[in-house]
């Protein structure tokens, strides 16, 4: 059956949280009522990436892009747009600069600079329907590999493409495959690392939710090239929707003979099983991940031996991350040369970033390597929220660093980010403004590391705890200048002596913030002052009696009734009762409340 029009509704976790499921069911009901259900098809797609504006509804073929759609808008969209052919302009996206509605997604700044390779199908296809994936060249790369190429030729193609691991390390993927292919064993394994643990990164989840077949296909291709017939996906139990869609994809691929015995009649067989993670950041490290899959505590072990030699159940194992796999089918379809033509000298292709924090367009973006931070933050991200001033951007999650204004024109790639004291990591990119305290941010990351350190090696287990304690002292105004030296020295010791990648990179957020925001540390220590106004122990709230008009808004919203005052006369804050939650500042329309 062919449809004249398609209504694509985002079915990613973010949009589902704001009732996209209800929108879909109401659209289906209403189309039926209007007898249009044979002509217009509603499809729940994966993430469009523009999460800030969700739920997103896109009408095809004209690419009309409706944002922040509510269930009550469904009838109007169908009556006006579908039946009468008139766009519902109040739901169209408006660029923050000129407030004019933009008619379709091709003209939205957010998408203009993006190049979507790993996310190519997210937001385009129904992830629960294998035929939609096949219609977009799905499984043709697998067919090509199995019928036209030798395993070594596949490896050579991946090597030639310059693809590097997207999980954080940036190790050349083709080389990794080659290592695993060289070992002779009765059984080998392909593992997909879907244990996305970096707080603030959600690209792997979005790919699995939006395009699960690309992972299934890539794992089978990897299996063929290294000589493995078994694949395992290690996925966080906290991702129920991704797990569900992956299960459906595996089942459909089996039904279509694209997984199982004798695929395409070539004699090559491959199966995929799912293994659940149970919430441990360290399991992103491949040896820890393998131990976890074996049913143990997810503690890392020293390399060598590398998993390529002795991994899961002591057999040669190749571990790649979700985004890395998502690139593989495209590389084989379009050729290594095409892929290598995108990006920079040392980093080919694109990178997906989860853009979040104090930025106008929170969302999932994919840009060619070499795009600058400025382009990402100001052109794609639409600049800083509420017209505030940019302060820092954190990349690489708990292993990365905070970069400043001076780094904005740095082209983003693996090597450049390390050079400026951060790293690519899995692609979290958190933007901070002038109201964010960098000491508190460093402490936030250390808190995460202390909680997630597996405890096996002393530098990480004990050292990070000490770093956290020193930072806490500083945020309470009890730090000394000597503490700053101690932070630095201890950080270097941990980096040099920790067992695995988690510990070796854990001091990065501290070192980069001390380097880039030294004055802010000094202000906390010498002046007992938090310049950003975040560190509670150093703050008191005041209402300026000149500016306060007595609108009572702050008093009505104060959770502890700490604000008193007559209507139409200046209010005041009882510092005993005040819990410094900041609600009053957010509510005050006259900038009458300040932090000292």
């Amino acid at each position, binding site marked *: 059956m062919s449809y004249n029009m398609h209504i694509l509704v985002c079915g990613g*976790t*973010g949009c589902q*949280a*704001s009732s996209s499921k209800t929108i879909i069911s109401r659209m289906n009901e209403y189309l039926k009522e209007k007898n249009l259900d044979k002509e217009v098809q509603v499809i729940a797609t994966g993430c469009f990436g523009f*999460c*800030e*504006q*969700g739920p997103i509804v896109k009408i095809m073929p004209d690419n009309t892009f409706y944002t922040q759609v509510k269930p009550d808008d469904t009838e109007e969209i169908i009556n006006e747009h579908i039946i009468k052919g008139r766009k519902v302009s109040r739901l169209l996206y408006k660029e923050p600069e000129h407030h004019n509605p933009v008619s379709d997604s091709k003209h939205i700044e957010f998408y203009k600079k993006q190049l979507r390779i790993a996310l190519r199908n997210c937001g385009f296809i129904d992830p629960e329907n294998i035929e939609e994936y096949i219609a977009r060249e799905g499984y043709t790369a697998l067919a090509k590999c199995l019928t036209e190429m030798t395993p070594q030729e596949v490896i050579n193609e991946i090597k030639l493409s310059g693809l590097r691991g997207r999980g954080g390390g940036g190790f050349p993927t083709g080389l990794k495959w080659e290592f695993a292919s060289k070992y002779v064993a009765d059984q080998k394994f392909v593992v997909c690392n879907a244990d996305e*643990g*970096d*707080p*603030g*990164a*959600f690209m792997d*989840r*979005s790919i699995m939710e939006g395009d699960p077949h690309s992972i299934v296909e890539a794992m089978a291709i990897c299996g063929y090239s290294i000589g493995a017939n078994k694949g395992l996906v290690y996925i966080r*139990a*906290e991702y129920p929707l991704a797990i569900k869609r992956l299960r459906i994809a595996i089942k459909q691929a089996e039904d279509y003979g694209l997984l199982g015995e004798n695929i395409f009649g070539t004699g090559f067989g491959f199966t995929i099983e799912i*293994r*659940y*993670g*149970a*919430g*441990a*950041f360290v399991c992103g490290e491949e040896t820890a991940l393998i131990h*976890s899959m*074996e*049913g*143990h*505590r*997810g503690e890392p072990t020293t390399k060598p031996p590398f998993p390529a030699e002795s991994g899961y*159940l002591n057999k040669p194992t190749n571990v790649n991350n979700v985004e890395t796999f998502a690139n593989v089918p495209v590389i084989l379809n379009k050729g290594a040369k095409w892929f290598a033509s995108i990006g920079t000298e040392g980093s080919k292709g694109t990178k997906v970033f*989860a853009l*979040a*924090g*104090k930025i106008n367009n*929170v*969302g999932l973006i994919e840009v060619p390597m070499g795009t600058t931070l400025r382009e990402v933050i100001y052109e794609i991200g639409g600049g800083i929220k509420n017209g505030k001033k940019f302060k820092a951007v*954190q990349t690489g*999650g708990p292993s990365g660093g905070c970069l400043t204004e001076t780094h904005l024109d740095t082209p983003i790639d693996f090597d450049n980010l390390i050079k400026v004291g951060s790293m690519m990591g899995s692609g*979290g990119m*958190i933007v*901070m403004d002038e109201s*964010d305290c960098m000491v508190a*941010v460093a402490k*936030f*990351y250390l808190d*995460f590391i202390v*909680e997630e350190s*597996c405890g096996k090696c002393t530098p990480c287990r004990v050292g990070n705890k000490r770093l956290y304690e020193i930072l806490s002292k500083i945020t309470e105004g009890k730090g000394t200048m000597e503490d700053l030296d101690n932070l630095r020295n201890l950080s270097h010791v941990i980096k040099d002596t920790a067992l695995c990648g988690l510990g070796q990179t854990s001091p990065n957020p501290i070192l980069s913030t001390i380097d880039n925001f030294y004055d802010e540390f000094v202000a906390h220590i010498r002046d007992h002052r938090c310049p950003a106004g975040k560190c509670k122990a150093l703050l008191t709230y005041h209402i300026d009696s000149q500016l306060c008009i007595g609108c009572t808004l702050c008093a009505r*919203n104060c*959770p*502890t009734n700490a604000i008193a005052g007559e209507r139409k006369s200046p209010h005041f804050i009882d510092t005993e009762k005040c*819990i410094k*939650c*900041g*609600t009053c500042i*957010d*509510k005050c329309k006259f900038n009458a409340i300040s932090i000292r």
Partner: protein
Amino acid sequence: MPEIKLPQNKVDQLLAICKEHGNQEGELINILHKAQQLFGYLPDKVQCIVAKELGIPVSKVYGVVSFYSFFTMKPKGEHPISVCMGTACYVRGSERILDEFKRLLNINIGETTPDGKFSLDSLRCVGACGLAPVVLVGEKVYGRVTPADVERIIKEFE
């Protein structure tokens, strides 16, 4: 910890789960996932049963349960509250939200109210960063929460 008695039918189901996984040590984490679904949490007794069935020391089971944050040894409240403390939510003020829940419910992270109604946890990134800061109560998601919203959210479930 007070002695608890597990209902026999659930114990039988637990034995069946272990058997279904071939009583294999390598299946420990998968078994614990199902056991937690069955009981809601993993008390000592459940860990002892699993250890016995798999022929491994209880210390090994406890080691795994205590290692992973997804496993809990305390029963959750009727309405488990999770405040997202991922970086995106953190910079948009989730700490203030968490403080407000702690204050109003008078419990700390990882605790349950005495009446068993609410338990409070923080979690790392649900991936709805566009809605930051995010709070989950059971399956229900609240986005762009302010400290002033907290009381209203709690009231919804009282």
